[in-house]
């Protein structure tokens, strides 16, 4: 693929996709919860920017709507909800550095390479541009997954989950120019409901184990059965 042949908007898309990937790394490493929420909000802004760019380059009206939806949901509403929850749970000053940051970053980089390897079988010339952005989105999804695995704090896990969703939005927008509107609305609704339920669960978990460290929830393992 030759970068020179891409339009300026497409180049901008590539740059933004790369920055989204970078925010994923920052989110992964961020120790302070509140700062992590801000990073997540910025990621949402970037994803909605990408959506707006695709809309502008294709002249697709419904995508502008979807950009606004993404912005409202991912950059404003969900971060605001998380912020409020964190304040009500008195976790404003919570920080939890990664145990082995270098190792985690290496794992995340490995995931980036893995996602690229996954899409490599797609070789048609006209698909390559999209394929590469799909690889980056997949990397964002997988890094979100990694974050959910290594973080033991419930709010941080939810941030990982939501950043996975950001990766999915990015993939949907860049690969396909947005899903049909009804699906997009459905997905946004599901994400919103999930966020509300997560909020409910934070309180239930804290009531139950007096902490949001989900590693302490270990009553239901197969090993417990052996005792």
């Amino acid at each position, binding site marked *: 693929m030759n970068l020179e042949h891409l339009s300026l908007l497409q180049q901008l898309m590539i740059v933004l996709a790369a920055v989204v990937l970078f925010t994923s790394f920052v989110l992964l490493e961020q120790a302070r919860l509140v700062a992590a929420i801000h990073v997540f909000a910025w990621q949402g802004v970037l994803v909605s920017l990408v959506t707006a760019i695709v809309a502008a380059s294709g002249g697709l009206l419904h995508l502008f709507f979807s950009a606004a939806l993404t912005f409202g949901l991912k950059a404003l509403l969900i971060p605001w909800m998380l912020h409020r929850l964190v304040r009500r749970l008195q976790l404003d000053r919570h920080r939890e550095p990664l145990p082995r940051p270098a190792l985690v970053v290496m794992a995340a980089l490995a995931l980036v390479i893995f996602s690229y390897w*996954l*899409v490599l*079988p*797609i*070789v*048609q010339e006209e*698909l390559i541009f*999209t394929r590469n952005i*799909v690889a980056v*989105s*997949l990397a964002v*999804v997988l890094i979100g*997954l990694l974050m*959910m695995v290594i973080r033991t704090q*419930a709010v941080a*896990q939810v941030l990982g*989950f939501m950043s*996975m*969703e950001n*990766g*999915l939005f990015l*993939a*949907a927008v860049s*690969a*396909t*120019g947005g*899903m*049909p509107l*009804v*699906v997009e609305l*459905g*997905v946004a*609704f*599901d994400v919103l*409901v*999930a966020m509300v*339920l*997560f909020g*409910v*669960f934070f309180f*239930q*978990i804290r*009531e*139950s*184990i007096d902490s949001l460290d*989900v590693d302490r*929830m*270990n*009553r*239901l393992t*197969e090993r417990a*059965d*052996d005792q």
Partner: protein
Amino acid sequence: MIKILLFTVFTPLAGAILLIGVRRLSIAGWLNVTVAGATFIAALALAIEVAAEGVITGLVFRIDSFNVYLLVLTAFVGMTTSIFSRPYMQYVCESGKTTERGLRLYHVMYQLFMFTMMLALSTDNLGILWVAIEGATLATVLLVSLYRTPEAIEAAWKYFILCGVGIALALFGTVLLYFAAQHVIDDPAAGLSWSALYAEAARLEPSIMSLAFVFLLVGYGTKVGLVPMHQWLPDAHSEGPTPMSAVLSGLLLNVALYAVVRLKMLVDGSLASTTSPQLAGYLLMGFGLVSFLVAGLFLHRQRDIKRMFSYSSIEHMGLMTFAFGLGGPLATFGALLHMLVHSLTKSAIFVTVGHAAHIAGTQTIDHIRGLIRTQPAVGWSLLIGVAAIAGFPPFGVFTSEFLLLTATMQAQPVFTVALLVGLVVAFAGLFRHLHPMVYGTAPEGQMPVRANMVPVMVHLGLVLWLGISIPGFLARWLDRATELITGVNLL
């Protein structure tokens, strides 16, 4: 025509909205049963329509011979479980495990769950299918934590996170699918329509489709409970209220598997002309077989009765996944039949287990003893149910498993051994625990409970009937579904 369809799908939603407003619990219980009954009747009417018309399409819906039988099954199990849950949940509320608010939440969420199931089954749009299956998680997750015990909250969190991640991967697969579709189907709005994609399956880009299928399989496979993504399933089943376990095992797993099979059909069409046309099938066979064997082994070490039966669900879902992967008319027919009988049997078992746990006051297998003496109806139901699920003749599970074994013997003889071993291991695991529970000495003062065994009887009766002779209309029905999936009919 479309009216019946809309009525079938949206009755549960309307019921849920109605139930939000109902404060009297006795009324709510009956309303729940009424709505579920109405849904079932509508589904039956729809089935008759489909039998006459072939395929019904409209809006974003499409009913063909494959999903119509699942619709009827879902509505039926939903109805019988609601009948069971009315007195059962009242007992739960009286015993102080949950509050009246919790019970209202239960009723609303039950109908919302039914709505998502109906929507997932009837829609033609793969995006809406995703939204519905994710919606099913959201509707049930609060019910899993209904009792608010630390275990229940842990199980719910695990369920939420694991299924959330799984389903997110499935969405990624759906996006890839849409990506592949865009280069084939001109109308972007039709790009996620299953029927449009199926018509053009051969032109879909194979490399994208196979990648998409891996994500979709992992995603929906999490919901099916395939090993190693099954971790949530035993926890959610054991900690949630019993009616929830019955519908999760009987319905949700089926619907997720339904989604996988639909997608496999697309991928098979796309990969037909490549060097690895069987890729999707092999993946399903691999995941299915592993789930089947691992779950069979795990059956042995369970101490919680509902946990044990949830492993049995994983085992059977593994078997069906394997069969769908194997392909061919015989295996597919067997798998469809197995879906049917497993749903009926497993929901009957969970209902019985609910009563058994009620009698014993615990879910721990070691403390459930002498059911047949305390309350013969429950003891016998459990005995018969387990005999049926373990694949004893003359029950329907035996028929379907026999068909599956025959198909395996024809297509891939090597795996027959693995299947037989797995069946024996699972059988041993179940009966080892069952015997003392049913025949052991009942503890002092163990009293019978108020139990409505009619749903169980009906389910087990149907399974018995299907084992002795499959009625002609049902056989034709399944055969048409087989023809839809494999392109060849069996009968």
